[in-house]
Every structure is written in structure tokens, then in C-alpha cells.
């Protein structure tokens, strides 16, 4: 589903503080499976996820999504693909304070111009599935960490993407909440979604919900 060939990524290229985060990554990611990237801080996991999720472009190399080369697409097309095909769950959740859980969840669908009633119905369905219906109208800053993460998950699913990208999803959760997240993860695979996540957490990478673990260090793959 996603093929990466010789992906290299540099930050501050051409300046004195030039830094290469990825050094020629070749990887093929299968659809409908959960792939976890494991590695220490600075190993390039998150950078790789941003490239796969069309949040940034590689400095060199090619990204193919469903057979199409998306590495050189203009921003507008990249944004379309990102909105329609990828859902993101960030480490810090990145919810917008002052807005209700419902408002946060429907935000990614605004540019699509779908009617509000349809978006609210879809959000309600997601809240029910994530057992969050009673908190839909609450402002996100009033929610607990676990609830905030479920709001972030609902937001990632509002556009019904094929791929879910989660960056260190359990880093801010205790064991019980992490287990809850893994259960939700299994639900994703059951629904046929492809999941890519980064984690140090043994609870995640050793879980049976994860189909493949890819190790990384210093911007290189170190084997599955």
C-alpha cells in the first residue's frame, strides 16, 4: 500500500546546522495491518511518519501511495490526500482548547464542505463507538488524558481514512488507558484500516495487536 524507496530527509539543508534525519529508507507497508516503528529518540521515527502521512516531503527518494508517486505533488494535492486518506493521533493530542469535543472532532472535515448535520451524525457515531457520547459537548480542556486521546482518535476517523498514523500514542497514558488504546487499535484492523505508529512502549510493540515492528536508529532501519 505504501512504498518508500531511498527516502532521505535533511533539516536546515545548506546551513551550518544541517542535519540528516533519515538516510535512505526502503520500506514497504502492507494494507490492513498495524506497523510499529520502534527506536530511541532522534532515530527518525516521527520524521518518517510525517513523510508517509504527507505532512512533509522527503529531501530525496520516492513515496508511493496505492501505486501513485506522491513525493513531488504540490501542497494542495498533498493536503487533499492527507485529509482523505490519513488520520492523525498526535502524542500531545493537539486538540484546540476552548472548543468542545464535538467541534474538535468535526474540524478536519470542514474543508470538504460536507453538511454540518452529516458531520455531527458521523461524530456521534464515533463518540458512541469510543464510549465518549456523554462528553461530546464538554470543552476539551475539561477532559481527562484518556478522554482527550479518544477525542483525538475520533477526530482522526471523521473523514474515514484508510491509514491511521499515531505518534507515541501511549506516551501520556497510564497502563489501563494504554490497554484501552490497544483495544481500540484492534478495532481499526478489524475495520480494515492500516495503522502506523511509533512507540518505545513494550506494552505497544509487544502487543498481539501489532503485526509488524520496524526498528530504527540514527535515521536507518535496523531490521523487523
Amino acid at each position, binding site marked *: 500500500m505504501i512504498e518508500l524507496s531511498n527516502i532521505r530527509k535533511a533539516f536546515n539543508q545548506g546551513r551550518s546546522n544541517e542535519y540528516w534525519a533519515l538516510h535512505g529508507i526502503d520500506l514497504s507497508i502492507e494494507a490492513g495491518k498495524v506497523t510499529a516503528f520502534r527506536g530511541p529518540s532522534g532515530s527518525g521515527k516521527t520524521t518518517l511518519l510525517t513523510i508517509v502521512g504527507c505532512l*512533509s516531503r522527503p529531501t530525496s527518494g520516492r513515496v508511493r501511495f496505492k501505486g501513485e508517486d506522491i513525493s513531488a505533488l504540490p*501542497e494542495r494535492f498533498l493536503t487533499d490526500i492527507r485529509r482523505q486518506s490519513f488520520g492523525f493521533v*498526535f502524542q500531545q493530542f493537539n486538540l484546540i482548547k476552548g472548543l468542545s469535543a464535538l467541534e474538535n472532532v468535526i474540524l478536519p472535515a470542514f474543508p470538504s*464542505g460536507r453538511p454540518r448535520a452529516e458531520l455531527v451524525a458521523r461524530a456521534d457515531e464515533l463518540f458512541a463507538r469510543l464510549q465518549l457520547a456523554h462528553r461530546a459537548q464538554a470543552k476539551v480542556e475539561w477532559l481527562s488524558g484518556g478522554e482527550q486521546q479518544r477525542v483525538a482518535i475520533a477526530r482522526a476517523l471523521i473523514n474515514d481514512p484508510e491509514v491511521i498514523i499515531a505518534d507515541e500514542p501511549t506516551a501520556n497514558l497510564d497502563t489501563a488507558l494504554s490497554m484501552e488504546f490497544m483495544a481500540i487499535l484492534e478495532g481499526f484492523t478489524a475495520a480494515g484500516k492500516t495503522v502506523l505508529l511509533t512507540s518505545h512502549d513494550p506494552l505497544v510493540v509487544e502487543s498481539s495487536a501489532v503485526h509488524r515492528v520496524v526498528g530504527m536508529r540514527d535515521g536507518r532501519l535496523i531490521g523487523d
Partner: protein
Amino acid sequence: MSPWLEKQRHLIDFTLASLARRKTRNLGLLVVYTLLVFVLASLTLYSNALRSEAKYVLAGSPEVILQRMVAGRHDLIPPGYLEKIGRIRGVQKKEGRLWGYYYDPVLKANYTFMARPASEVADGSIMVGEALARERGLARNNTISFRSYSGKLFSFEVAAVLSPDSELLSADLVLLSEGDFRRFFEYPDGHYTDIALSVANPQEVRNVAAKLTATLPDSRPILREEVQRTYQSVFDWREGILLTVLAGAILAFAILAWEKASGLSAEEKREIGILKAIGWETGDVIRMKIWEGLLISLTAFLGGFLAAYVHVFHFGAAVFTPVLKGWSVLYPKFALVPAVDGLQVATLFFFTVFPYTAAILVPIWRAAITDPDAVMR
């Protein structure tokens, strides 16, 4: 609803929610912005209404007034001048006028005395303007005495108080018969203060003036359009003075707006990053922020303009009256006829709404083009 319209609706919904989240800051800005529009709009509306009023009032005055000049000063029209003018093509009517100023030590104010034909005002009686009647406590059938410049005392009976509708013109006016006027001011027989001429065709006015100058070289024709222009200049000048005084306030607002617009908080920048990461295009973010700027500036413009309208046309522009209306002891009381000039509204709109909306664009654009992966770092 089309997806495009639905999308704009979503953007406006989100913008309103964003504005509500930063209530104190946005309300503060809105109040200052509205106040500025209010002040500028009041000034514009009031000056414009006064100009319209002057134009309206002058519409009833003669097209040409002829004054005799001696050593560059206005002098009396000697006998025979009316006849010397003779028949000029285009002149419908010519009339010698008698008027003068009288200083009343009781009110410490100048009145304008004007002679009217005996058919309008009988000997021994006068008609007075509303402001004068108010200040001197006069009513119909009251008697009032004035001491003439030669020291003689004259008593008049008030035959009527002039209609308040004409107060802008007649506030300090005293109408009396020609005979009384000549006796009171010891005005020589056959002399007049000036000559009023009515010209039906506006195209002819300048030709008539040229012929008058040729016939009576010691006289000066004053055209109504020149008087109108002078009024315009006087109000333009007053408006200019007030604008200069207000320049500080306008500048302060500009600084406030610029600071607000250019100083995107870290929280706002973070939010823009999140929106981009979850699938908003740079254009969507910019559109949303333009909606935000437009909502603030249009609300301020409408609020400020409506408040100014009420202030000027319902409360008589209490704030600006002393500066704009001019100086007088006998202030006429008059309600301004609402007159709104489309071009002035457009100018005001351009100078208040446009700069603000433009000022917010650059920083928003700068923030909106940041890489969406920033939120992952």
C-alpha cells in the same frame, strides 16, 4: 447548499468560535475600533449634513447680489443704481435691499435688521427670529425697545415670531418696515445696502455678472455659487482641523490594529499548525482569518456608523457641535436633515475596514505557510 457555501459556513462558524474563545481581547479591539469609526463617521456625517443644509438654505437666496465698493470696502448703493442696471437679458427681478447689524447690549449679541415692504411688516411692528425671541423672552404682541446708534429709543410691537423651520437662517433676524429701518439707522433715502438679482437660467449667471461689472465698474457681483463654495470650504477646513486633532487617536488605533494583527500568539500559531496537519489547506487558514478580520471590522464599521448616525441626527452631534457649527452668541436650534453621501461612506469604509483586513493578511500568510509537520516535532 453547495459544498463551497457549506465550507464558508464552516469557516465562519469556526471563526466565531475562535473569536468567542478570546473574548476579552477581541471585545477590547472591537470597542476601540467601533469608537474610532463612530468619531470619524460622526465628523463626516455632521460636516456633510451642514454642507447640505447650507446648500438647501442658499437655494432660496438670489442668484446674484450686487455690492458697491469704495476703497475696497462695501458701501451703500447710491440712488439711481437700480435704474442704471436697466434691462439685462436673463434677469427676472431686481430689488434694492436694506439690512444692517445691530448690537444689543442686553444679550451682548448682534442682530440682523432687515427691511421688508409695508405689505409684510407694518410701521411700528417687527417680526423676530426664534432664537432671539427665546433669548429675550419675546412673544407675539409684546413690546420691545432698541436704542439706535444715534441714541434715540425706538419701541416696536412684536407682530410675529418667525417659524422655527427657518431658524438656521432667521435665528437673529429682525424684520421691520422700510420706513422704520431708515429712521432707526438714519439711512439716507434712495440708498440701499445691496441689490439682489434673480436669474432664471444658471448658465446666464456669469454673463449677467460680467454685464453688471461693465455697467457699474465700482460694484462687485457676488454669485450664489461662490457663497456656496465658501461654505463648503469653511466646513472642509473645520473638518480638517478636527481630523488633525484626531490624527493621534487614528494613529493609536493603527498601532493597536497592527500589533493585534502582526502579533499572532504562540497559541494561535500552534492552532494554525494543527489545522494544517489535520487537512486544512493554507488557503483555508487564510480564508478563515480573513473572515475573522472582516467580522471584526464590519461589525465595528456598522456599529460605529449607526451610532454616529444616531449621534448626529438624533442627538445633534453633541460631541462636535462646538467645533463644527461655528461661533455665535445666538445659536440657532435646528435639527439636521439626515444626509448621507455614498462616496463619503465608501471612503470611510475604505480607510477603516480595508487597512485592518490588509494588515492581518501578511502575518497570517506567514503563519499559514509553515510546514504542517511542525506539530509533530
